[in-house]
């Protein structure tokens, strides 16, 4: 069957599989978002839909080699975080941390500052722009292996050269076969993964120790940066004292002001005081008694009717034929 060249604005790129033809849909990347500008240069970025589930960066590069050299491949937004964080954790130290890819690049600096202010105790090991230099974490061994993604996933492909983009978007005369990179797949991958997850104990030790060091370092740093100091209550410009839960009565950060308990926060009710039972007698007057009796009888009848209706329904479904 002849393939359409374009579907909904996407160029159809057939990929030859052993018994079939996989389709990758490609389109020039166009984003309104300011943030992605730097990551995805508009004139060089190809937006791909339905990349093979086990595609690696290398494989995609090989596949698009006919169009030009691929600078990098970003599989999806979340992966962006991952790759950068990973680089971070392994001590490269240079990666700028961008937790929230929606956050504008320019406001990054400010953002981290703010974070540090509002979050004195919740520390993240990746805040380490400031001196002194943070301790390096010994990485756990990783070999490059395939990450499987959900089927039908998208990817951004950044070419080195903007001319490649149009080349990539011209429909292929015939399906290109899917290249294969040296990352392990299948059984070999599972074996490698298994072994890799059980690193030698000394590496585990080194990793854990250094990671803890880094944590301590971050903790210390944030303490320094934090506006909170032990023993000093924090009063903002409007004169409110900041408090947090903890201790027997809750505490200010430093001070000694009580704070509402969790239940109060959740429900707005104080749990400690039991609601007083109303002492009023329910059957004091004769009419109350009579009404109560009447109600009991009515309930009896109501339940009975309800039962009857239910049985009637069961009867309809011929349930009462024992055999």
């Amino acid at each position: 069957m002849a393939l359409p060249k374009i579907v909904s604005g996407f160029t159809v790129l057939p990929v030859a599989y052993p018994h079939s033809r996989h389709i990758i849909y490609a389109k020039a990347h166009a984003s309104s978002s300011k943030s992605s500008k730097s990551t995805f240069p508009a004139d060089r970025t190809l937006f791909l839909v339905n990349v093979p589930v086990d595609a690696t960066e290398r494989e995609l590069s090989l596949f698009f080699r006919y169009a030009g050299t691929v600078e990098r491949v970003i599989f999806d937004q979340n992966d962006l975080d991952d790759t950068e964080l990973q680089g971070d954790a392994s001590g490269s130290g240079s990666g700028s941390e961008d937790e929230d890819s929606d956050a504008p690049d320019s406001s990054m600096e400010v953002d981290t500052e703010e974070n540090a202010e509002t979050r004195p105790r919740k520390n993240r090991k990746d805040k380490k722009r400031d001196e002194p230099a943070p301790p390096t974490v010994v990485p756990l061994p990783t070999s490059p292996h395939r990450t499987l993604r959900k089927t039908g996933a998208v990817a951004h492909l950044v070419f080195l050269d903007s001319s490649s983009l149009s080349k990539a978007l011209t429909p292929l005369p015939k399906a290109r076969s899917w290249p294969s990179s040296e990352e392990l797949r299948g059984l070999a991958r599972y074996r490698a993964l298994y072994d890799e997850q059980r690193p030698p104990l000394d590496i585990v030790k080194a990793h854990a120790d250094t990671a803890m060091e880094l944590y301590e370092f971050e903790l210390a740093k944030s303490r320094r940066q934090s506006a909170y100091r032990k023993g000093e209550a924090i009063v903002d410009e409007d004169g409110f004292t900041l408090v947090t839960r903890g201790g027997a009565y809750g505490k200010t950060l430093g001070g000694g002001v009580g704070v509402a308990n969790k239940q109060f926060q959740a429900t707005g009710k104080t749990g400690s005081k039991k609601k007083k039972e109303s002492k009023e007698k329910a059957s004091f007057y004769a009419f109350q008694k009579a009404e109560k009796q009447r109600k009991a009888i009515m309930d009896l009848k109501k339940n009975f009717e309800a039962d009857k209706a239910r049985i009637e329904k069961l009867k309809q479904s011929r349930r009462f034929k024992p055999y």
Partner: protein
Amino acid sequence: MEDGEPENSGGGEEDSMDGVELTPGDPGASSHHASKPPTGEELRMIKDAVNLYQSSSFKLQIDALLPNVRPSTKDSRKAPLERFLHSLRSHLISMRAVEPQNPVSAARALAKQGIAVPFALPHPTEEVKWKVGFEPPSDINVVGSWANQICVKRKDGVPFTVDVTIEMPDSLFQEKDYLDSRYFHKRSFYLAVVAQSLSTSLEVDTFYQSTLGDPRLTVLVLSPRKGSQNDFSKAHAKIHVIPVISSSNPMPLSRLSPSHANVRLPGKSSAGPQPTPIYNTNVLLATYPKLSLLATNALKHLCPAFSDAYALLRVWANQRGYGEGPICVRGFEGKGCWWNEVLGLVVFGEESTSANKANVRKPLGKGLSSYQLFRAALDVLARQDFSQKAVHVKSTNGHKFPPDEYTSHHSAVFVDSTSTLNLLADVPSTSLSMLRYDANETLEKLNTSSESDNIFAQLFLNDQTQLSKRCDAVIRVDLARASKKQSAYEFVEYGSSDNALLAAISKTLQRGLGDRVQAIGIFHPSSKMRSITDAHNPLLSTIYIGLTYNSENAFRLVDHGPPADGQDSEAGRLFRQLWGDKAELRRFKDGRIVESVVWEVKTSDDRAHIPVAIVRHLLRHHFGIPANDVRSPQNYFDAKLRLPDEVSSIFQASGSSSGFKSALAAFDGLVKRLKSLGDQIPLALSSVSPTSEYLRYASALGPVPIPQSAYLALPDSYRYLPTIDVNLEFEKSTKWPDDIRAVQKAKLALLEAIATALLSANKITRASVCTADCSGSTIQQHGPSLEIYTTEGWAFSVRIWYDREATLLERLSSSVRTPARPLAPSEANPREQREAQQALETYTRQFIHAPRHHRAVANLAHRFTAYVGTVRLVKRWLAAHWLLTTHVSAEAVEIISARPFLGSGAVLPDDASSIPRSKERGFAQVLEFLRDWKPEEPIFVPIYEDSAPSSEPTVAAVSSKQGVWTISTSEDNSGRMWTSSGPDAIAARRLRAIAKEACKILHSTDIDSLDVERLFSHATEDYDVLIELDPMILPRYHQSINAESSALSKDRTIPQEDDATPRPGFDPAWLLFQDLQVTYSDTLKFFYDVYGGRYIGAIWLPIVSGIRPFRVMGGFSSTPEQKPNEKNKGTVVLNKQAVLDEIERLGAGFIKKVEARERS
């Protein structure tokens, strides 16, 4: 009305007695508006319903049931029958007499016309002096339940029975006819003449039918012929013609008491003739129908609720096989009148005898409601052991025969209200024990259950005859090769060789099994109609023996007999006679020397087989039935829970002992070692809690350790080494960091310390920290674990429980930022929240619920011997159908399997009779539950001690992707802990369908090896995609339910280069399955047998079928496709083959083939 013959006579054909309308009014008639206050009448009725019945809905259900089990009262249906009865009567009266002649020559004459005479034993000979003849009946009556209008519909659409007695004139009989079956011969001839005449002149089909195969009880069955002028098929009835004799017959009554010997056999030994109580009873039956009719009629008028109670009792009994059908409890065929008499006993009480003067059963009175009467009758059946204590229903004119005669000559005594005969004369006491057991079980249910709908259905609506769920052991006995060496006396007494044999089997089994069982049931099909050209019933080919164990004694290893002192004492002789060569003299520890039988037990499986082994031994010893003809499915089920012999022998070669006990011992060893580490680890260990099914006897296959040396020598298909999960808890410490990620790192450090310490102590082969996804910064689902590989070959996976983790995760996952919490992590992004949420769920399951669940299940395993077996069978079965773990979690199975043991509402007492005592029965009950359970109904299972449900579990709205089961326990009120991820609607529906099929297989009474295999064989036709894996690579392939031995050969064909170290818990098929499930969660649904299945099956999800518009986030692999006549270009269709190609790539190295199938 399955009362074949004995019910009674009286009213004549036009019985005009109307059934007393006694249901207290139709409740529907009087209620008009729910809003109006009820009238006094209504109120009384409602109150009655509540007070006199189990509950008002129970009463309404009874009212709904009863019309369905009674014959139609429409005239159009009855009239043809009435007409036919008239013509039958006139025909019979006008029949010509036959001259008296020698019975043999008379039979010969009839045989020429194609009519057989069903002579009883001993057959008449040419030489006899007495003659048989025929004269028209002196009286013809409609008797029995039809005449009394109390008849109850029978199972399987069998028509109602109209009993018609024809009274043989006294002139045909002589005083001595009670001797040597002469009366029966005359009766048979009479019947044959009537059969001959009716078959030729009336347009009806005529058959013989002999209750219990006893020729003495043969009746003539007339069933309507369609379209003939006598077609009374509208009445849905058949007519039983029963020859009877008048009360003025010449045979002296006194000669028919139980103690008289009325058969003289040639060449009888010196002992003199033996009494023939059953023979005598059968003679007495000839006068009984009329008496019974009158007595029942009186009872019916006296006690308004009688006929309803009778109907309930009969429906209850029919549903349990006390009557007629393909699988019936022996002895209750044709005992219709007995059930009346049971109610009569309730109403009238007992006649006093010399033996029971002190505690005669008191009459309960006639004003009871039908339900109360029914319940009282059940109470009689449950408490009264008729074989121990004779019962004489209160009669108007005292005893006809001395009561002692009954007790000394009958095995069970229940003398009817006319004091004519013992209705239980030919009912074996094993069958009575079965009845007692069933009545007990029903009473228990009535006492404990809270859901009245459910209980009503169980009592009356559901078929309970399925042996596999009713008896702990079901044994199929082929009688073809049984030696019928009973004496001629026994043949004559019991009426047929089958009856004599079964009576002997029943007695022998009861003696041999004794207190090991609560009940023994002998089941076989009830007698069928046969052509009037056949004199005798075909012989029984097969019977089923059902045993219900007594859990305390069933598996006893030694049966003690009488002491040795009198070698030739009577008791010792009887003991040796019973057990044959198995009996031996033994000296026991306490110094006694007694006769005893010791049952050899090699494995724990064998122990569960002891009762069946006893049956097998006894049947072989006494009846020459070869062991092969006595079959029970136990062995087949056992084999499902064991590795095949050739596999286990390979593991045994490694020298480590396998099984749950060894696993527990290894665990204890580990705990000791961990505790002994002391100062070598930074925090003190406070507790070690196991959470693995291997440590609670609950995994389908027992765990097998593989020491390192053996591991390396094994081929890939043997290399699965299960890891046993264990949680560690440490003392509280302030040193823990206050950040979830840092906590994970701290755990790593702690685990590493433990590993190093353990290794230095040098007791284990290997310890490695499993860091699964520790390197990233994502919040981990499971956290790091420590894998410990002991020298014996056990692998443990140890995790650390840190209780503040929950708080940390909660803090991360909750997004609410209340004014009171300005310090909430403001930058938490949705992904982090989601991860924290998931991690929190995993944490709760892994550290809070799993240990509790483990303790509860381990506790149940100790309380109920059959529980773990049941769990294991259910697991194996679910796995064989590709659902276990992949869709149904092991814990959910453990909870569901506890249901038959614990009941649903009020907790059953531990000795409740309905609790299964064998895994096969538990399995059958779980299957039935799974078949009937609608997933939208939440269930509660009290697996945690005795707490009742605190609140009704409610069903949370679930999306199609989530699990649909709600199984709540007192620790998990929402009931989603183990079922939140599955089974989803598709899997649950599949499971029900498979359970239904399995129940059918179990129910098909032929219990054959093949059938049990069929239970576990999975049909793959339903899958759209089958992914074939290479069995040589699968480490669990040796556990597969149908492993091919070629793939299990020990020779290694493909040497692996990277197999230097053992990989505990490594199962690439499972990893692949998980990957596939995640990757294609919206495209395909996968199914897999975790026990080394060779195939992964999958079905395309309907949400990706057809042509759909192209979307960027479509979530499936597509290819452009246009609808033929549409111009819209942006449409795509699922690219199936490309998906399959990708799957093949993902499993490179061990996928052999991915096969797509077109389903019709």
